[in-house]
């Protein structure tokens, strides 16, 4: 909470801000101490808004976050809790939303998962389930980043929160960062969403660096098997049970995702499915962006570690792609020539849906105009959705145990 109690009295004990003096109080506050950082936050907010509008980078999140960054970094901002005249407590709406929507219950990111689950069609993955493993392999970036962050001097909680950026999954990053009580939550969230928007730029570079043109030209036949309605209905229930038994910490994430998917596939709740996909997802996204901006207070955001986290995020996204590609190459050693997997499909095993699948499709067509990989890449991409939430749960289960020395 900002301290609103400026030195408001002169040496005679009389108020300095008599009459209309309150009009310049905020300007004076900006000139004191480290409050210049607030102006830097306005610039950062403006950059986020610019990226959202001009470059269309994740506009649904970057725009509210950018605006929120300005909103909460105004001196005596009424959007966050203040104490007026040292006596009156004035609650701020953004702080209230953050306290109850994210900090106390993580309800916002979790509810967003219902919407995401309702949007995903697991059909292509069910017809070719071996692509599930790419959703696991492409989570490698998370752990590689955690090791890098520790090497750079971060403690395990902060390193794990930075590493989870590589899950390429905004709500998971918010949830894990918040539960691990990282001091860099704002940076983690901003970097996570920014890099997700930059997937079309980062992934092609990473994929090209670890594949040859010949490998990128590998064609994969697409012969989808018919998936029954019963399979589609039972899938979310079975995944919830399996994830819940193996990694109970992931169950809130996986459960909400799968609940959303069950709404979609059951066939009798189309109105609710529609509401989850459109109204719920949009409403939560709208509030989530401006709410997480609460963590973008100047003091917490403007520090060298924010730049380091940006570097970690980039490293994580690159290592995700490398992990997926390398796993595909490993599998190819054991597969006959006619059944080889295009290694680029492995890189689509991240959660950034459907950007990553589109990147792979584009790269495939660029190498050979008749090489269509979209359906395979989409399957790997939706498995990445499952992989990222499971990874989030695994990190949440293992890190506290390691910190308390249970392992």
């Amino acid at each position, binding site marked *: 909470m900002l301290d609103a109690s400026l030195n408001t009295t002169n040496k005679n004990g009389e108020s300095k801000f008599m009459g209309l003096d309150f009009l310049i109080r905020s300007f004076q506050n900006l000139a004191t101490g480290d409050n210049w950082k607030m102006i830097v936050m306005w610039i950062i907010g403006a950059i986020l808004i610019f990226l959202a509008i001009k470059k269309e980078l994740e506009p649904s999140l970057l725009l509210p976050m950018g605006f929120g960054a300005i909103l909460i970094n105004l001196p005596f901002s009424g959007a966050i809790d203040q104490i007026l005249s040292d006596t009156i407590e004035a609650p701020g709406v953004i702080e209230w939303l953050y306290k109850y929507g994210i900090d106390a219950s993580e309800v916002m990111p979790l509810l967003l998962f219902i919407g995401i689950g309702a949007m995903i069609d697991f059909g292509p993955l069910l017809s070719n389930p071996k692509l599930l493993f790419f959703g696991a392999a492409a989570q490698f970036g998370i752990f590689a980043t955690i*090791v890098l962050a520790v090497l750079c001097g971060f403690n395990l909680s902060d390193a794990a929160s930075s590493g989870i950026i590589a899950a390429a999954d905004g709500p998971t990053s918010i949830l894990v960062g918040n539960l691990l009580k990282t001091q860099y939550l704002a940076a983690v969230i901003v970097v996570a969403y920014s890099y997700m928007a930059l997937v079309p730029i980062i992934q092609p570079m990473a994929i090209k660096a670890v594949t040859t043109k010949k490998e990128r030209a590998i064609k994969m036949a697409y012969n989808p098997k018919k998936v029954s309605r019963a399979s589609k209905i039972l899938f979310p229930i079975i995944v919830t049970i399996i994830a819940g038994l193996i990694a109970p910490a992931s169950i809130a994430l996986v459960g909400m995702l799968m609940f959303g998917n069950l709404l979609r596939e059951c066939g009798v709740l189309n109105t609710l499915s529609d509401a989850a996909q459109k109204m719920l997802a949009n409403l939560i996204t709208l509030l989530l962006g401006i709410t997480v901006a609460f963590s973008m207070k100047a003091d917490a955001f403007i520090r060298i570690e924010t730049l380091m986290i940006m570097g970690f995020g980039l490293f994580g996204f690159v290592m995700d792609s490398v992990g997926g590609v390398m796993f595909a190459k490993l599998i190819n050693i054991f597969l006959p020539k006619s059944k080889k997997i295009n290694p680029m499909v492995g890189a689509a095993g991240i959660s950034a849906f459907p950007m990553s699948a589109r990147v792979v499709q584009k790269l495939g067509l660029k190498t050979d105009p008749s090489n269509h990989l979209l359906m395979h890449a989409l399957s790997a991409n939706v498995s990445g959705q499952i992989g990222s939430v499971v990874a989030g749960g695994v990190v949440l289960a293992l890190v506290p145990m390691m910190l308390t020395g249970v392992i």
Partner: protein
Amino acid sequence: MSTLLAKIDKDALINAANLTWQGMLAIFIVMTLIFVAVIILNKVTAITKADIKDKFKRLKQKFSKSANSNTDPVQSKIDTDGDI
């Protein structure tokens, strides 16, 4: 180099390394179980009522055939020839 290494929290590094292999292993285990479940699910849900009826029919035929082949050869000769 040695100063840099001295600055690194070795316990945190060991924990990070453990987290890496244990985390990746856990994710692969979950995905493998889901994979097996999907394979079983696809197989089970692909079975139609007609398939089940067919299977029962074939089973019935098999039983009746084996019942015929298991009868006493002398008795079956009596049955077919009509006299001893």
